[in-house]
């Protein structure tokens, strides 16, 4: 089901080096991968950046969950590819648009799977962003498992009332989800009201400064990780904008494979 996609963005505790990184380092990773995804279109570079992201996921032991979320990206990727290819008739560009989506989704997925939502408000206070924004952000991540479970319960309750989700034409299928969506939204609003009450009575005031009992600190690991990632970005920028090194594109790789003697393929 579609909401299982959220699992790829849900934090689970872990003891890996990636989990131990400072929250800002994890955010920096996602941001740099996004920059790489946006400034260029080369297939080889996408492959390198994706490999690095998957390697980080593997170290953090979240690779399996990341790959599972790809299943749900397939239809979206196909749509992007077809839309681009039909309008522009450019194979390399269409492939790179898909890879762009994949790289950004993977990088943010790895970050959020290893970033404890409790630490997000620490990031916000570090970069001097408003505290209430940080709290909205961290609590929406904190409540993903709760909301997922609640959505599941709502779907069960409505199916027990003979609701068929996958019946009829496209228009009907969208309509079928109204009995799910309305309770999901109503329950979320009720929940946020209760949360607000509890926050008020525990002295939370976003307008006022507060302290943090546990301040994550930068370690040697952070330094190494950040330097490696930044150097990677710099090399890519250099290759793309300042050098004449030619990197293979998707169509070149395909034609290379096609030109190989038939015997070597077997």
């Amino acid at each position: 089901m579609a909401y299982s996609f959220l699992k790829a963005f849900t934090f689970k505790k872990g003891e890996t080096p990636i989990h131990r990184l400072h929250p800002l380092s994890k955010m920096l990773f996602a941001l740099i991968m996004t920059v790489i995804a946006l400034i260029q279109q080369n297939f080889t570079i996408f492959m390198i950046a994706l490999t690095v992201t998957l390697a980080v996921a593997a170290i953090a032991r979240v690779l399996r969950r990341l790959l599972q979320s790809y299943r749900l990206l397939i239809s979206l990727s196909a749509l992007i590819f077809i839309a681009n290819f039909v309008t522009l008739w450019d194979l390399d560009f269409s492939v790179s648009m898909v890879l762009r989506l994949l790289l950004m989704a993977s990088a943010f997925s790895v970050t959020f799977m290893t970033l404890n939502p409790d630490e997000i408000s620490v990031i916000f206070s570090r970069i001097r962003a408003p505290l209430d924004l940080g709290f909205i952000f961290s609590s929406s991540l904190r409540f993903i498992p709760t909301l997922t479970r609640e959505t599941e319960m709502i779907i069960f309750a409505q199916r027990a009332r003979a609701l068929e989700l996958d019946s009829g034409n496209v228009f009907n299928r969208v309509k079928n989800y109204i009995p799910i969506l309305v309770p999901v939204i109503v329950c979320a609003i009720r929940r946020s009201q209760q949360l607000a009450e509890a926050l008020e009575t525990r002295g939370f005031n976003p307008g006022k400064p507060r302290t943090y009992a546990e301040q994550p600190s930068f370690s040697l690991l952070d330094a190494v990780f950040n330097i490696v990632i930044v150097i990677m970005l710099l090399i890519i920028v250099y290759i793309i904008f300042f050098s004449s090194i030619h990197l293979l594109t998707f169509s070149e790789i395909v034609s290379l494979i096609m030109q190989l003697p038939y015997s070597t393929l077997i």
Partner: protein
Amino acid sequence: MRRELKVGETLREQKAIVSIDNLSFRYASSRRYALKNVNLEIYEGEFILLMGPSGCGKTTLIRCINGLIPHFYSGEYSGKVRVFGVDVQESSPEKLSEKVGTVFQNPENQLFCLSVRRELAFGLENRLLPPPKIKQIVEETLEKFRMKHIADKAPYELSGGEQQKVAIASILVMRPKLLLLDEPTSNLDPISAVEVISFLKELSSEGISILISEHRSWLLAPIVDRVIIMDNGHIVLDGSPEEVFYNDKALGIGIEIPPVVEFVKTLSRKIRLPKNWRPLKVHELSEIAKYVSPIKCDSLPQSPPIKAEGKTILDVKDVWFKYEGGDYALKGVSMKIFKGDRVAIMGSNGAGKTTLIRAIMNLVKIEKGSIVFNEKIDLTKLPTSKIARFIGVCFQNPDHQIFSETVFDEVAFLLRNLRYPENVVRQRVKRILTMLDLDKYAESSPFMLSEGERKRVALASILVGDPDILILDEPTLGQDRFQKERLKRLLEQLTLQGKTIIVTTHDIEFSLSFFKRIILMSNGKVIADGSPLEIFTNENVLRSANLIKPDVVKIRELLKDIGIGTPLHLSPRDLALEIISTKGA
């Protein structure tokens, strides 16, 4: 305001920490006054139980003390509330939180962090305490309340009882002088409720003042100093637990009376008992030997055996099921349900009750086993929408299913999904709405109704399908005594029509007084199946199901121990009547 003094305490030492003077409040969204001319004083060190039927104003009263009213909820406000000498209207919930802590019903919505340790730190961080000081207080609190072993766990890794204890502890780190709790155990199974209440008892003995609103009077009556009963926005009774529960007025309000009180009160209608004898605890009943002569038990009929005759309407055989990435939730569950059966499935949270319902409805695919309806229909091969024609399931939370613009449409949803012609739909919906006393709301929005009414709408939306088997998941949760009695009458009526009723419940009183058969589940297995008498008198079974022994069973055992006899009934009223009717036999 009468209140028994504790040893060594004099009147002069009693300081009113809360004084409410002629308070009335009406929510901006409502036409009715939620509180009307309330006068109340709370003294230092008191442990107060606040009771009343749903919608009586308990929650509103609590909000008036912690400042959520008028600062978070606005409306028409008159009168004065002073908390620790401060006028609530001129203060704020944030400022009041320094002295007043509030714990709400749903533990999950009060825990914001992903570890217990951070949760405890949260309130102190808001107070701008330096980190080393916060850490010190947090560690001390963890130590003191024996929470070290769960310090790094996330809320969803804790049991309901643990969650609520963490919610309470996260308030206690701020050292409040007064603790307000709004139905803190409503979402918990009995054993977790006992755990939380004994935690409160411990706090009370340390001198914290406590005001708790709660339905389970049997749990609190023996330990609180004072009971306040509200009805319709007024305080109707206020005094010691003995004074309040033994007052005849208490029975006329929709609150749960402790079984011990109900037993003694029923006896006193036929037998002369001393006026000042007002026991609240089971062991205090032993005096009863002075007033009642022993009864002969063998002259009584044996409890009726469970009917094994009749058609098997639902046959669950060796069902195994595992959630993705979890342990087995059902480990070889088998049970035969007969036509016309009235079955309560009980067991602590996580025993597999709700999963079993999901499996019956084919909402989850079982791994192994079979579920057969009416001796021939294999439910594991039928889509849920087809099963819904003959099995109706009403899940716990009505808000998980209410979505329509009008109550009529909400109730018609099932029939329309089953493609009934519109004239049949109209006719059947009308009948059900009348049966459940909801016809006056047919054109109202279901979202505007009270919680009890919404629960009834949800029930109507299932009953309208005229199912052969009706499955109700925790139907009495959050319901007051009148609402429960109404539900019992409705279910009684349905049994007479030949319906089979299956209920999952934590409500001991409900299962003892209404069901003929109880199936106990524990850890994904059925561990006992029998009459209420067989189940609730079997210590081993109760222990392995993590259930506590109901007061009424304890009363029965006491009667046996002091030589009065072994009655067969399991409701306090019937127990008393049995003793009276066979007196001298």
